[in-house]
């Protein structure tokens, strides 16, 4: 069931963020990703949505995929150890023309009972325990007021299956996958989620072997054998645990060349030198463009020599990221501003930073 191999894949990615916090249905993001149909091959598609569970905003929303529904008892036992299940239900799905079979998806809204300063770590631990320990169950997302919907199929079909037009979110991220061998497993689709991070990724990480071993040092177990999983854990480690701010992630993931660092002025030079020296194991080498969603925001980034495409655009109070311009134009035919991300560049926006409106570019890595 679970594919034992790491599968390189080409992909389409797209993301929408309403900087004024307006909620929109999933209909737009489905239209956007559908335009890039040719970039995926029907073996994986998925979405992440933020702001969709306002009534449970304080609770961890766990989306769990059950290949084997009999494992639900074991999963729930693990969840109940440190959390109270306030509400649980099957995630509604509707048969579509192209998808007639799907595994059971459940969502749980969990209240953590322990000390608040370690609740994120505990959630990470639970996710690791279920995903590496229970065969037949898989936690797809584990954040607050957000969720990941994904599976095997073209993204537009996955969107219809989960009836995403029924959800209202302020940020939507989508992925269409082109794996180079049969995926066959719903958990292997993207986005990949941990806590409130969700990552979609187009590319292949040549440094995967060392990134995975680097993460082991910090207790992250990579069991899915996907590059995206590694990126998600690295984002979590660096931002949540190591206090590196998002605009500077480029200095680690797609570090400038030593020659460029040499030419920097202090104190920037010292900062970049330290980051690269200490976080060499977190350097992501090889082609990638990624979109990462987090509570209240979204950022995009490309690799250090820009081997994969990514564009950022702004229209009124909406921020877009996408593999191709057409996917943005489909839902916003006229734009205020459109830029192609440069090598190693991070472009990040947050709800409430409307004044930025495409002018405040956070640039790192150059």
């Amino acid at each position, binding site marked *: 069931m679970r594919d034992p191999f790491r599968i390189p894949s080409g992909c389409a990615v797209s993301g929408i963020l309403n900087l004024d916090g307006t909620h929109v249905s999933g209909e737009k993001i489905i239209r956007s990703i559908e335009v890039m149909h040719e970039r995926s091959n029907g073996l994986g598609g998925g979405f992440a949505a933020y702001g969709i569970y306002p009534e449970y905003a304080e609770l961890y929303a766990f989306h769990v995929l059950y290949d084997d529904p009999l494992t639900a008892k074991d999963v729930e036992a693990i969840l109940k150890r440190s959390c109270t299940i306030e509400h649980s239900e099957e995630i509604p799905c509707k048969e579509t023309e192209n998808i007639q079979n799907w595994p059971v998806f459940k969502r749980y809204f969990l209240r953590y009972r322990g000390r608040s300063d370690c609740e994120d770590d505990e959630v990470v631990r639970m996710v690791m325990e279920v995903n590496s320990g229970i065969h037949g169950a898989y936690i797809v997302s584990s954040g607050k007021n957000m969720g990941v919907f994904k599976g095997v199929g073209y993204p537009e079909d996955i969107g219809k299956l989960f009836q995403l037009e029924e959800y209202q979110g302020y940020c939507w991220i989508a992925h269409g996958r082109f794996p180079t061998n049969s995926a066959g497993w719903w958990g292997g689709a993207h986005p990949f989620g941990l806590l409130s991070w969700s990552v979609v990724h187009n590319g*292949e990480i*040549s*440094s995967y072997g060392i990134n995975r071993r680097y993460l082991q040092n910090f207790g992250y177990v990579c069991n899915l054998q996907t590059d995206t999983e590694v990126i998600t854990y690295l984002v979590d480690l660096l931002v949540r645990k190591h206090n590196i701010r998002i605009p500077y992630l480029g200095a680690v993931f797609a570090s400038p060349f030593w020659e460029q660092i040499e030419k920097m002025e202090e104190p920037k030079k*010292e900062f970049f030198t330290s980051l690269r020296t200490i976080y060499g*194991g977190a*350097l992501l080498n*090889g082609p990638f463009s990624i979109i990462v969603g987090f509570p209240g925001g979204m950022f995009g980034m490309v690799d250090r020599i820009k081997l994969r495409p990514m564009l950022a655009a702004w229209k009124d109070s909406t921020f877009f990221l996408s593999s191709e311009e057409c996917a943005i134009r489909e839902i916003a035919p006229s734009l205020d501003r459109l830029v192609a991300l440069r090598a190693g560049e991070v472009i990040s926006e947050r709800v409430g930073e409307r004044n930025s409106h495409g002018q405040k570019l956070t640039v790192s890595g150059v």
Partner: protein
Amino acid sequence: MARSLLFPEFKIERDKERCIACQVCVRQCANDVHEGSDTEDTVVSQEEKCVGCQRCVNLCPTNALTVQTRKDGFRPNGNWEDRHLRGIYKQAETGGILLTGMGCDRLYPVYWDHLLLNASQVTNPSIDPLREPIELTTYLGKKEEKLDIHWEGDSPVVRTRLAPQLGLEVPVIFSAMSYGSISYNAFRSLAEAAREAGTFCNSGEGGLHPDFYPFGENIIVQVASGRFGVHRDYLRVAAAVEIKIGQGAKPGIGGHLPGEKVSKEISRTRKIPLESDAISPAPHHDIYSIEDLERLVFAIKEAINYEKPVAVKIAAVHNVAAIASGVVRAGADIVTIDGIRGGTGAAPQVIRDNVGIPIELALAQVDERLRLEGIRHHSSLLIAGGIRSSADVIKAIALGADAVYVGTAALVGLGCHLCQKCYTGKCNWGIATQDPVLTKRLNPNIGRRRLVNLLRAWAFEIKEMLGGMGVNAIESLRGNREHLRAVGLSREECSVLGVKAAGEGW
């Protein structure tokens, strides 16, 4: 004395038509193999003295000479090989330990030759090093686990001070070879080449001649069990200090530089009396435990004001992973591991050929062990012992090394022909000798150029291979065993190496 039972090891053929009796061979051979005649235009050779160093062959102006391994006439025997008979004859004649030089030459598996590298196809573009930068820059030393960042508004203030690092432009360092075991000119060639190529050379345990103090920024000095030439300025002038516990060619035993090699300059460098034997004890007599090592590590760190990394070199032995873990915990910023094929100027042959394990296995186990213990970042891993080409370098890095030492490869670059007679002091190539007639055969300017060329060529090749894998910084390959696959190895060997079999995908 009775005639020796030993046959000559080499057969010298002199083409009479070509030989012009110029006597170059006579003058070139420190072993007095060739003998000219004052009266006749002929040269005769005594094969039993020949070591097969090929110096005369190389310098013969008419290519009249051929020196070949002589096929012994012993009756073939699957159990008693020629080398066993020769060893017994020699020992029966002399009653001594058989000595040898250079690294183990037995046919143990060379794991580098069973590891294959990856390359990108379609899903991941390969990178052309002639068009795109590919970085080999490497920093050796302790790395903090995390950077302590304090934010003042949008500006980061770094509160972590980086531990001292050795910066290499190419991840290859010249191994420890003392002035004494090698000549002044050989040492100078290495030091000058290290400076020009942006890397380091290691003083060995022979102290540092005052002439080489200006090269301090590119020299790692060694503190070994004999403590020869160790004093305040020696420690302070260097880029790093290495405590030598063991050596791959002779784990568990010490060293001996015979008094006849202790010339005026060597006595001055090692701070020992002229013509006295320089004996390095087997253990350090102030280190009988891991906690004693820790005290020496910190005594040296105090002496150098914590400004430079301190390395500890151990030989690859059976329990190397656990030992390395202890060494890291004892405060070493760099752990050097030397495998069974590591070279030496002199070692008992029985030790060189039978003690220790191949560096590939040791490296794989040490790297994995340190990672499992979560202390891999506390120290860099430098490995030594049998690195022959850029392919070996890149495979070592993919297995988990931060950089490699080369000793034999550097000497071969200077002209060594691996005759394994370094311990005789009669090196015809001017490398492992102190005889002024022989040492001046090695011109340090030419030596430097040859070594710089070698490193440059290897760097180009490493970049080509990295680019092929779609990697443009060496740190993305370090410990990245996904880029290695094994051929012709057992399941156990694959598992010790932490490498999948060729044909297995991701």
